[in-house]
């Protein structure tokens, strides 16, 4: 099947969606992935989070074909990802790597050509990315002679130079300075806005929360929570903060399905179990005297993530 006919199919089938479908992988006795499943839709920024060793890198390497899965399938636009499709994926591996003694521009041109661009297109694309990332003055320097920050920019350019239809980036923000983080965020947003599915892993949850349309939290090789950021927060336990200056310690005791999670001065935070009534909490607060503040809180992504990790520790 040619690229063009694939492009046509794209409109008919899963529309440029990257599907990770029940992938499993073991290393000897270690189960790295167990039925890992999620989709990254076209035009979506997908954040992939999980503690070290959860299986993020393994998932991405399998998607890129540099590692074979024991079972399961990765599809793009409804079709199993093969060498031809992989040529249209932009990849930034966790272990960064370029030819240390090759000049920045030569390197980008070479990689673009290996991804199927003609020499002249490759040169044009390399120049445009070097310009965009502020590397034009450094284009003829060996990569090993560039500063770490500039090396990372070249690495990003290497993932983008062939105008990929899918972007898979393994911890692209790790080790970046704040300016580079902004550049990276902007580029990823832009790629997603152009209709490309973008998936990246990260430990910087505030960044993931700010940037991503959807998030997948994995634990021990399995997806434990996956959805839009707002959606996930909605699905978390409801919390209330109540500022009742006259309330005595323990005023929430005896309220069904309500547990106190913290007291700061006159402000009490409680968590409501499924089905518990927030109005009963308000009524109880009013019984202690005036209520200055009463608000519903949703957990942040960081809190959700901590929840997941602590469950992992417990299990």
């Amino acid at each position: 099947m040619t690229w063009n006919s694939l492009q046509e199919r794209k409109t008919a089938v899963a529309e440029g969606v990257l599907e990770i479908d029940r992938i499993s992988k073991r290393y000897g006795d270690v189960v790295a992935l167990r039925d890992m499943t999620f989709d990254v839709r076209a035009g979506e920024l997908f954040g992939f989070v999980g503690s070290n060793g959860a299986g993020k890198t393994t998932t991405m390497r399998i998607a890129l074909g540099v590692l074979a899965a024991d079972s399961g399938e990765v599809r793009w636009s409804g079709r199993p990802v093969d060498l031809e499709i992989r040529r249209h994926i932009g990849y930034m591996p966790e272990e960064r790597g370029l030819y240390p003694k090759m000049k920045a521009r030569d390197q980008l041109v070479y990689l673009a050509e290996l991804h199927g661009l003609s020499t002249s297109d490759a040169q044009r694309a390399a120049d445009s990315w070097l310009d965009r990332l502020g590397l034009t003055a450094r284009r003829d320097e060996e990569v090993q002679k560039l500063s770490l920050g500039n090396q990372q920019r070249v690495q990003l350019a290497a993932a983008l130079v062939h105008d990929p239809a899918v972007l898979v980036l393994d911890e692209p923000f790790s080790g970046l300075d704040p300016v580079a983080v902004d550049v990276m965020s902007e580029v990823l947003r832009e790629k997603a806005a152009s209709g490309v599915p973008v998936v990246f892993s990260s430990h910087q949850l505030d960044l993931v929360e700010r940037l991503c349309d959807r998030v997948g939290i994995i634990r021990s090789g399995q997806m434990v929570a996956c959805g839009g950021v707002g959606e996930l927060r909605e699905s978390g336990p409801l919390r209330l903060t109540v500022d009742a200056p006259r309330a005595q310690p323990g005023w929430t005791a005896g309220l069904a399905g309500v547990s106190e999670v913290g007291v700061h001065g006159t402000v009490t935070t409680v968590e409501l179990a499924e089905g518990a009534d927030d109005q009963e909490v308000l009524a109880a607060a009013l019984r202690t005297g005036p209520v200055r503040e009463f608000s519903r809180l949703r957990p942040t992504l960081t809190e959700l993530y901590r929840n997941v990790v602590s469950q992992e520790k417990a299990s």
Partner: protein
Amino acid sequence: MTTLSPTRTVGLVARREFTTRVRSKAFVLSTLLIIGLLAGYVLLFSFIGKSSAIKVGLAGQSTGISAPLTAITGKLGKEVQTTTVNDQNDGEQQVRSGKLDVLVSGALDAPKVTVKSSLDPALQQALTELVRQQAIQGALAQNGLKPNVLDAAQSVTVRPKVLEPEDPEQGQKTVLAYIVGMVLFISIQTFGVAVAQGVVEEKSSRVVEILLATIRPWQLLLGKVIGIGASGLIQVLAIGVAGVALGRASGMLTLTDFAVGAVASAVGWYLVGFFLYAVLLAAAGSLVSRQEELQSVITPVTLLPVLGFVVGINLTLRNPADPISAVLSMVPFFTPTLMPARIALGVAPLWQVVLALVLAVGCIALFTWLGGKVYGNAVLRTGSRVKLRDALR
């Protein structure tokens, strides 16, 4: 975007390998160094060759014997260089100072021979012969006989029936064989090891993961082998052309056609040898992740040609017809250096050459299969050294 054919992929990889290497300082310097060594050898040899001529000073009547003396000593395998000196005194002075080895002066039938310490036996024989002829002709003339009556008698010689004629060009061929063997040995080692280093460079810099996300391991391996092999080919060709030119310019090499043939076949053997070792070395290189670990895995492979070359070339040069060297030259690991040396010596029968080639090509096919398998399995496993057994699965 177009679809990328495997040929273009391999070509792209090969082009990168070729241009990076050919443009590198190490490549240019090593090529110049080897050519420089060859030039030094030629210079040294022609210097020694010239100084081995016996310098004979001729004075008085003796100046006339220059031509016959040169001819007779030539037959005896010695070269003389004659000069005319003013007189006995001047000549003796020159002998004393070492400018001349021998001074011949005085009458033709009773020449005076002056040397510093000893007279070369061949020259003594030649001079005696000349004086004898002179004396006989004098005696004939005194007795009224024509000087040429004895010509027929003098031209009588013993002609041996030669069973194995000595090749007058044996010397040149030996030198040629040695140089061809040496250059091939160095090139195959250097560029074979360069392939292993290239494999490790991609592993240690981790760039291999980006590459293999878009091309297949065999395409990367093949492109690398072709690119590095081609850069080695350029070097071997440059050395061959420079060597033949130097040899001709210095007069050391008169067998131009033969030498060109030997160099041309050496280029072919370089390719055979390079492929044979390159695939093995690439596979060995793929087992480790750091250059420092490389030596330990490639030594078993690089030691083979050293052994074959050192043993084989010595046997061959001592006795070109040595049967052990003939057998060794047909063992694929040793063929690429020994067979071309034997061809340069002119002692390799066609059937041996063909057999050696067939065996070597068969071996290349086998190693490509095995080496490709090991490489494909091991090249993405970074960290500790990959066990060969795991990589062969």
